[in-house]
């Protein structure tokens, strides 16, 4: 426990050091706040403009969560199909890899063309960027079931569904949660990307507008908000992960933080 506490202390210390260093750098070098505002300035802007920012925060959060949930659902279904069936794996994998290699910035204009600007393209962008790690991890988890375990269950007369339910899915959980943590960060990238390109709401849009007005502290305030949301959701999923798949992370307690 004391080692754990020490580790947290150092982690907090490093974060503090980062911001203090930044502040000092700005003060000493006399850097213009049009280029790099001081963290204290960013924080002041954040507090001062919070009532205006709040609806945008909610917008970005809602869009991200919607894209994320849809992406996870799609990813789980595709991953399960690919992981269970060798034929599906061989057939669908090349297409999936092709799709996932497309830079998603290039897809946003197409979504805008189809659905207009606003929430829909943002949801779709975040969906399309976050489902791939889920597919890969679910498929890997299912495909790595021990053959002996399968033999034991088949000899008992277990159906394919019995094996999937009792062995395949629980086995996949650690892979699934690892991919959720990656996917939630990706989902934010997708939302903010679409918001900067084609939306009049959301943190991405706020940052875009602020930067064209040279309100650099507000741009940085947007970054702080995104970082905060990202960390909060990452922690939330880590906590759920600890509860569901503690058996797989018994040796390292830093998975919790």
């Amino acid at each position: 426990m004391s080692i754990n506490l020490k580790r947290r202390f150092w982690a907090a210390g490093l974060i503090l050091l980062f911001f203090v260093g930044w502040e000092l750098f700005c003060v000493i070098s006399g850097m213009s706040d049009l280029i790099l505002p001081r963290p204290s300035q960013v924080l002041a802007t954040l507090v001062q403009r919070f009532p205006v920012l709040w609806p945008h925060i909610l917008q970005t959060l809602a869009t991200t969560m919607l894209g994320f949930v849809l992406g996870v659902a799609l990813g789980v279904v595709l991953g399960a199909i690919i992981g269970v069936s060798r034929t599906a794996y061989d057939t669908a994998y090349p297409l999936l890899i092709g799709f996932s290699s497309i830079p998603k910035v290039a897809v946003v204009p197409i979504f805008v063309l189809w659905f207009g600007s606003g929430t829909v393209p943002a949801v779709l962008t975040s969906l399309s960027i976050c489902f791939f790690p889920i597919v890969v991890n679910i498929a890997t988890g299912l495909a790595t079931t021990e053959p002996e375990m399968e033999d034991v269950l088949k000899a008992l007369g277990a159906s394919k569904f019995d094996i999937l339910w009792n062995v395949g899915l629980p086995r996949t959980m650690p892979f699934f949660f690892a991919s959720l943590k990656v996917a939630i960060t990706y989902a934010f990238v997708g939302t903010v990307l679409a918001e900067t390109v084609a939306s009049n709401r959301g943190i991405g849009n706020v940052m875009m507008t602020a930067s064209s007005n040279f309100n650099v502290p507000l741009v940085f305030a947007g970054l702080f908000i995104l970082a905060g949301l990202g960390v909060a959701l990452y922690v939330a999923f880590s906590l759920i992960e600890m509860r569901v798949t503690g058996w797989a992370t018994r040796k390292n307690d830093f998975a919790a933080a």
Partner: protein
Amino acid sequence: MKFAIVKGAPPEPASPTRAALAVELSQTSVTFGSGASAVPALSETTMRIPDGEFVALVGPSGCGKSTILRLVSGLVQPSTGAVIVGGREIAAKALRIGMAFQNPTMLPWLTIEQNVMLPLKIVEPFRSRFRQEKRGGFRDKVHGLLAQVGLSGFAGKYPWQLSGGMLQRANLCRALIHEPRMLLLDEPFGALDQFTREELWAILQELWLAHRPTVLLVTHDLREAGFLASRICVMSARPGRILDDSPVEFARPRSIAMTFEPDFVALNQRLRELIVDARSAQTAGSA
């Protein structure tokens, strides 16, 4: 002591002796793959195992011992011939057979109790009562069996908290919990040290004497075969055939000390020679 296996005998009509047979392989062969890459694994093997017998299969590596297990469990279909288990031709649907491998394959997210209980969740008639009884009757059943193998007090532990020998005991419990009429063991003690192995032989013997399932044990250890089995089949090199089939008539319960007596050593010696011959026949054949 020794008798040759009857080859090519026509399947008998339904008779009382037939009903008492747990397993019957008649002219069974298995070939993996097809065309030029076909690998014959088992050639025209005929074998009869009466209900409640403990049969050990020994032979050189890769001779098709495990193939016989997979045939009996329905995991592999015969290329020619027939496999009859429990009076029925083996179909895709196996008959609640208990299996254990060298790798204990305990599921890491379940406790030992939950792991051992797994077959009850799958096999009828337990399956339909599982929800009601998993905290009652089934639990007592699991604890009773765990106590028989010396694992009482470990039911709530997770697999990573147990040693290899303990995991293998739990593995035996999982293979027996649903009271199978047939138990298939593929080198279950292969990865254990000599002393743990001997301890588990005694436990397996006790379990067999108490529950009397038909057992088919694949092993490389001739002392293990002699200690446990009531009959030993020696197989030739790939593609496997049964070269020798002898009953083992030492009185039960057998003790480890018995394995050092002259009769036992002689049996061991004879089996050893058979396998050495089979191995050298293979080397000569491939040269």
